[in-house]
């Protein structure tokens, strides 16, 4: 029987190698392309009428837009406006990746369940936000690591803690998304495996298989929630980090 972790295997669809680097087109790449194509279709077709009074589809697009705009405005303030396209892209990208991964057919690949992908995104956010911090505040940005009003002997402890917590941001950001997706998909596959092996035992097994099947249905609902929630959390934390960089608390 296949391992529940097999669903995370990256399959090469086309071998490509440039200057010694492997940049093969894989099922992971395909899922990324699918995400972007679906986002583009969702937004473009939703907004094709540019209606003053939006229909259902246009409302959904506008809801996504306003949701992210509000989130960014509430956390990073008006200075964060110019980073809106990035946050919006990030939110929609993670959201669609997670939701595509929940499709029960086509065996879609959930690239957010790969630490390489989530860490690359988190590292990009981390580096970008740190650069924004230094560009906005110059070397005063280092003051971010010095808590206000603490006596000097406490600073000896607090400053390293602040630096470590700052440096661990990309790790927590990426592992949170990665672990959530892996756990959910693994659970679904494990219980799917129960259904298969129980129903192989004959009539009693088929009846018994109803229970793990029901659990899968419930778990799918939960995973849909997690898919949206993790996209929100990822975007939200990016906004918070951006706010730190722009305003230093």
């Amino acid at each position, binding site marked *: 029987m296949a391992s529940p972790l097999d669903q995370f295997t990256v399959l090469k669809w086309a071998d490509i190698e440039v200057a010694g*680097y492997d940049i093969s087109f894989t099922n992971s790449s395909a899922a990324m392309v699918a995400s972007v194509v679906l986002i583009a279709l969702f937004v473009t077709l939703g907004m094709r009428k540019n209606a003053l009074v939006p229909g259902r589809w246009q409302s959904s697009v506008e809801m996504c837009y306003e949701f992210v705009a509000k989130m960014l405005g509430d956390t990073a303030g008006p200075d964060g406006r110019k980073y809106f396209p990035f946050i919006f892209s990030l939110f929609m990208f993670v959201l669609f990746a997670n939701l595509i991964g929940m499709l029960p057919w086509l065996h879609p690949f959930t690239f957010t369940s790969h630490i390489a992908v989530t860490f690359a995104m988190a590292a990009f956010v981390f580096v970008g936000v740190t650069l924004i911090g230094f560009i906005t505040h110059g070397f005063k940005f280092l003051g971010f690591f010095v808590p206000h009003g603490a006596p000097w002997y406490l600073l000896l402890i607090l400053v390293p803690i602040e630096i470590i917590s700052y440096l661990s941001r990309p790790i927590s950001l990426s592992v949170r998304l990665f672990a959530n997706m892996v756990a959910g998909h693994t659970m679904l596959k494990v219980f799917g495996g129960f259904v298969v092996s129980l129903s192989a035992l004959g009539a009693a097994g088929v009846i018994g298989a109803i229970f793990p099947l029901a659990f899968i249905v419930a778990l799918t609902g939960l995973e849909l929630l997690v898919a949206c929630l993790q996209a929100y959390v990822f975007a939200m934390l990016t906004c918070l980090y951006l706010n730190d960089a722009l305003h230093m608390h």
Partner: protein
Amino acid sequence: MPQLDLAVFAPQIFWLAVVFAVLYIFMSRSAAPKIADVLKKRQNTIADDLAEAEKLQAKAEEARVAYEKSQNDARNNAAAVVLSKREELKAEAEEAYQKLSDDLAAKADEAQARINAAKDKALGEVRDVATEVCSDIVSQISGLNLDAAAVSKAVDSKMKGDG
């Protein structure tokens, strides 16, 4: 765990970068401005409509005030007209009454005069008849032929004395 296979890192990160860059360009160049445009347009339309509604409401209020004012004016005007007409009619009626009563008084006076004349005439005739009757009675009883003047005098004095 397939995620920990280092061989899958490079292709995924490469495609992630490419795909996300495309998405970002699409969002920042096309999607986000378009959506922002629609939202802005809607907000403006709503604000414009509200302003228009407010203006129209003010206009309606103005019209209402003007209507009420004109109604008031008309009512006052009508009351004034009624009042002046009433005065006029009253004066007219009084004048007519006065004229009529004067006429009637004149007619009554005239009638009274006529009555007096008739009365005087009748009284005169009574005296003549009395005088004649007296002369006749005296001549029948006594056979005396009295002087008409003396009888008339006697009757006059008697009438005056009785009268």
